């Protein structure tokens, strides 16, 4: 039996900000969920199951969102699942929801991811004082910066590339009303003049800490037929994982990321991602990860990713726009960040991305990763129902 085709018919986000002191966590997720339902012109009664994700519990203390948030998400009397894959969780949560529809377990599924970083402490949550262990000798960026240096050494990328990514994404964010950072006076010079925190990573090349939630309504062919707005169809979706540390691990271009992308392209019938994909929303927490992922995801040959960035290919008006929404560099409610990538990819192919719409986008990719480059989740969405 064939899989049920999966369509995104509703998308909702909160306006991402540094701190939402006016709402509880329930109130925050509710906003995104209500907007997704409104977008789909559906009610709670139309939802058959809820799939929720967030970053590790320690970020906000011991909590069980799948239990506490059931009322707020209309899940009473329905199945509610929680997905748990570190920073990639927003992506894997959407894929679990999509798989429930594809397998015809449920007709219409609400999926949602969130983080209220103002009421959490990610750095603390990630650096528990485990006895006998050597503490990490650097802050958050200290984990990533050596991998960036390794990329620069491996490819000969010039120092300026990281700043170009940050400058692009922050300008894109100005066109996205939901983005957290709206730096109206951003210039390339300002990015380049920002303090070098973990050399080679500058302050302006790091992601912010945000409060926010993102929700999507996924449904099958019958639901898509009733959709008031064009649906985004899931053409492929995959997850891969690998250990955080192992001999031979390639932190610059992890095998799990390459394998995950290859699986998605195989499902979607993509043979030349650079030409066949119109927009990419990729998980870039530090600016240099754009050229790194361009290679890892097969948009550029090994060693060539930075050349696409440098040539402006990834700009909003380039021929492969990357992070038209402003990306993680402009908005980072950790648990939601992956789902925002997936949702923004869907907005592009629905033609609903507003000012940051890539004209005529037919196929777009959403990408998420997390842990120590440990989890990968990606989907490819299209404006047309997939064939076959």
């Amino acid at each position, binding site marked *: 039996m064939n899989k049920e085709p999966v369509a995104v018919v509703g998308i909702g986000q909160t306006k991402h900000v540094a701190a939402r002191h*006016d709402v509880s966590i329930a*109130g925050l997720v509710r906003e995104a969920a209500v907007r997704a339902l409104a977008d789909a012109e559906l009610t709670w009664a139309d939802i058959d199951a809820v799939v929720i994700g967030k970053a590790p519990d320690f970020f906000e203390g011991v909590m069980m969102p799948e239990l506490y948030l059931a009322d707020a998400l209309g899940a009473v009397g329905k199945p509610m699942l929680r997905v748990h894959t570190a920073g990639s969780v927003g992506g894997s949560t959407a894929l679990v929801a999509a798989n429930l529809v594809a397998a015809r377990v449920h007709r219409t599924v609400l999926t949602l991811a969130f983080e209220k970083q103002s009421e959490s402490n990610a750095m603390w949550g990630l650096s*528990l004082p485990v006895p006998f262990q050597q503490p990490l000798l650097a802050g958050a*960026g200290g984990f990533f910066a050596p991998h960036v240096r*390794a990329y620069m050494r491996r490819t000969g990328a010039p120092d300026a590339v990281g700043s170009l990514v940050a400058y692009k994404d922050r300008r894109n964010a100005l066109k996205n009303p939901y983005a957290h950072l709206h730096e109206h006076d951003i210039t390339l010079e300002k990015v380049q003049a920002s303090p070098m925190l973990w050399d080679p990573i500058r302050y302006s090349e790091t992601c912010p800490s945000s409060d926010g939630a993102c929700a999507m309504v996924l449904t099958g062919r019958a639901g898509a037929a009733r959709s008031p707005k064009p649906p985004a169809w899931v053409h492929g979706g995959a997850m891969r994982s690998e250990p955080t540390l192992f001999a031979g691990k390639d932190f610059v271009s992890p095998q799990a990321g390459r394998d995950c992308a290859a699986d998605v392209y195989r499902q979607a019938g993509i043979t030349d991602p650079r030409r066949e994909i119109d927009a990419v929303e990729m998980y870039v927490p530090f600016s240099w990860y754009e050229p790194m992922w361009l290679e890892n995801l097969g948009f550029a040959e090994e060693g060539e990713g930075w050349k696409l960035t440098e040539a402006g290919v990834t700009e909003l008006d380039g021929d492969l726009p990357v992070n038209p929404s402003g990306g993680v560099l402009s908005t980072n409610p950790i648990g939601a960040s992956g789902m925002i990538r997936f949702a923004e990819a869907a907005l592009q192919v629905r033609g609903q991305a507003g000012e940051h719409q890539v004209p005529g986008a037919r196929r777009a990719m959403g990408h998420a990763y997390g842990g120590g480059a440990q989890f990968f989740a990606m989907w490819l969405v299209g404006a047309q129902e997939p064939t076959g």
Partner: protein
Amino acid sequence: MTAASPPEVLRAPLVVEFPFTRSLGPVQGAFLTGLRERVVLGVKASDGRVVVPPVEYDPVTSEEVRELVEVAATGTVTTWAWNDRPRPNQPLGTPFAWVLVKLDGADTALLHALDAPGPDAVHTGLRVRVRWAAERTGAITDIACFEPDETPAAATGATPHDGVFQDAVTGIVAEARLDYVYSPGRAQTAYINALSQRRIVGERCPSCHKVYVPPRGACPTCGVATTDRVEVGPAGTVTTFCIVNIKAKNLDIDVPYVYAHIALDGAGLALHGRIGGIPYDQVRMGLRVEPVWTEGGRYPDHYRPTGEPDADYEAYKELI
């Protein structure tokens, strides 16, 4: 060398604690502010039931509910469990009953503690009243506990309340604390014990022959136990690094300093450490380094240049 019979595996307490903040939103904010003012609020659900503590969203229809009502500070125990050995930070220091109390005017029950002399004094249907805390801040602990109360149920039921108070409480701080006993296991115990002799000892995978430092007892690639112990280093190669220019909390190291990945000679993957004994801006990939131990430190304090020529990139690029 092969692993001898395992010595005592290390164990130590691991306490995880943090004061988390929570924004309350309109409903929980009104509820907790009310407690400060000795007022117990509930919310009227779409089916007319009064839910205490109040919820933001209807438990049946999921619609937003905002119609607040005041209920009595007296009620009836609907079920209970005796707690013979109270733990730190529980509502009472002496044995007490956990109770679900349906307050007069409410249709749902509230979880709290009941101060009673013993389990024989508690039963379902027992009438109780709130014992208010002397100092109230807008928290569930403003109800110190419940206590038995002989007065019969008030007939008034719930009365409308606008939920508006002076100086409304908008957030709380929730102290979270977990107590674990942590053990690093056999392989890491051996590694840590060797460190005390200033030796760095990993374990080799019998399948892929890579040496894991620190060892985890198994090879994550091959999925088999590692057994052969192998001393690595002491010298190694800086495979990559960053220059840390901002002070991290809880780290007493003057910035700037270099945080590096170091592949010790013989190791199958890099570990991390600080580089010293060389100006930070002269550290480079391929730099040959050796550990510098200090009295009382479990791990090398830092690594310093050995003075050897830099390693060739080809020699360590697989270890980055």
